[in-house]
């Protein structure tokens, strides 16, 4: 086993991969997004359920549920996402999401904020592999998309 490989596949990641949290699509939900990684065909369908959509950033994330097909990185990342975001306000979740994106773009040089990112700091090693960054971000992009849809639907209804 190579040190590089270990750096990427942290135990936390493999744990989430083998025992994903909050997996499966659940009702009720406010919006759903389906995202695909065109290079490899990985797919995720993700639903969000918000409380108090009209409160904007203060709306609370009641549930995030998902169904995903893909590699260990994209599966684990979806699992970690649900742990981190369920129960937060949308505003807080956005900060987490931005911190995760920054970590992914850090080319292995990032100093992740452990308090904010918790288990997600384990993905630091992934940022050295450009082709895998998209895997790690797939569910996060789907979450952003679903959330903005939830707001859009609210304001148009």
């Amino acid at each position: 086993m190579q040190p590089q490989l270990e750096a990427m596949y942290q135990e936390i990641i493999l744990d989430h991969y083998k025992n994903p949290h909050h997996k499966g699509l659940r009702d009720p939900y406010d919006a759903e997004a389906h995202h695909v990684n065109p290079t490899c065909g990985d797919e995720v369908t993700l639903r969000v359920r918000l409380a108090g959509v009209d409160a904007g950033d203060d709306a609370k994330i009641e549930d995030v549920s998902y169904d995903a097909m893909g590699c260990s990185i994209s599966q684990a990342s979806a699992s970690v996402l649900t742990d981190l975001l369920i129960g937060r306000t949308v505003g807080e979740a956005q900060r987490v999401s931005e911190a995760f994106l920054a970590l992914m773009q850090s080319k292995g040089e990032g100093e992740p904020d452990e308090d904010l990112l918790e288990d997600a700091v384990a993905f630091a090693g992934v940022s050295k592999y450009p082709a895998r960054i998209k895997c790690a971000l797939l569910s996060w992009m789907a979450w952003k998309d679903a959330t903005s849809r939830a707001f859009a639907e609210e304001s148009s209804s």
Partner: protein
Amino acid sequence: MTVTPQVEGLLDVDRIREDFPILSRTVRDGRPLVYLDSGATSQKPVQVLDAEREFYERHNAAVHRGAHQLAEEATDLYESARARIAAFIGARPSDIVFTKNATEGINLVAYAMSNAATAGPESARFRVGPGDEVLVTEMEHHANLVPWQQLCRRTGATLRWFGLTDEGRLDLGGLDELINERTKIVALTHQSNVLGTVNPVAKIAERAHAVGALLLADAAQSVPHAPVDVRTLGADFIAFSGHKMLGPSGIGVLWGRGELLEAMPPFITGGSMIEVVHLEDSTFLPPPGRFEAGVPMTAQAIGLGAAVDYLSAVGMDRVAAHEHALTAYALQRLGEVPGVRVVGPTVPEYRGGAVSFAVEDIHPHDVGQVLDDLGVEVRVGHHCAWPICRRYGIPATTRATFYLYNTLGEVDALVDGVRHAQKFFGTA
């Protein structure tokens, strides 16, 4: 490590590898490079790099345009490359058109067919419209699928396809129904870049010609790896890319039967493809000029000329035999690994050297990551042939592809790497 067995038909790879500078580099913490991704793009021998550089340093000029000495030399080199590349596939020089890649060659034919609607009567046989059918297969690379979807979209024609058998072969059961008098063109791959399958082009062409349809063979994976002679292949058009056959990036070839190219309207238009230009309208050169608008990929054509010289010197039958031996060995060794399933024919007959496989309970991305960490460079994903994955109910595959510079030892490294991945992810 396994002891490498004695196998028939192998090339003197040590000598060949000396011509490929990249093969002696290391990757990921000093691992020797095991390059098993030639199906995506091949590596280049110094002979090709030297030919390109010599052109730029001594003869560079715009071809077919100037009357000065450099322009003469450049034109000579460009046309001599065309003649040698044509000879490589048994074609006449005037029947091959330089494109930027195989993808452009296929698009050229697809666009010529929709352009035929507003071209002269000599192009009538290329016209397609509602009620007409365009036939592809379920194993096409996107390059030989999406252009035909788009042709149908532009013209109102209907797209149909051959399905696949569980063994990774074309299901030809419906041949006579699928190819019928409504069929205008059959576009199919000569050799699958995912399954390795070699398709019976001549047999399908016979049926296509019987109903007056054209046949385009995507030869992107066959011309680099086996002798291909357009005089016996049966196809009316073939397209392939230089970068997959030791040549530079940015150059491809479309071959077409002379009388078809002659009657086809142009695709990309501009300078160098015209006969007479008025502001109102223009007339066009005969082929191949008609299809080569603008200053062409001169250095790249010359580089591809050097690549076919290299391949011819080795001998394409010997290249094919070498890859056949590697493929047979890979199929056998991968077959011995529990949890590994080859997607595509599991026998080396009528197949080329693309070996795709699934490893139980490990996603191909993760298999590829472990292999990469060991210096073994394979491709993972849908390999630009998404419908194949859907057909076999898998999200993606891991694919190893071989070329004349690969060794049995590199196949061993692949198999060892797969076992390592299984250990790492705890599935074996």
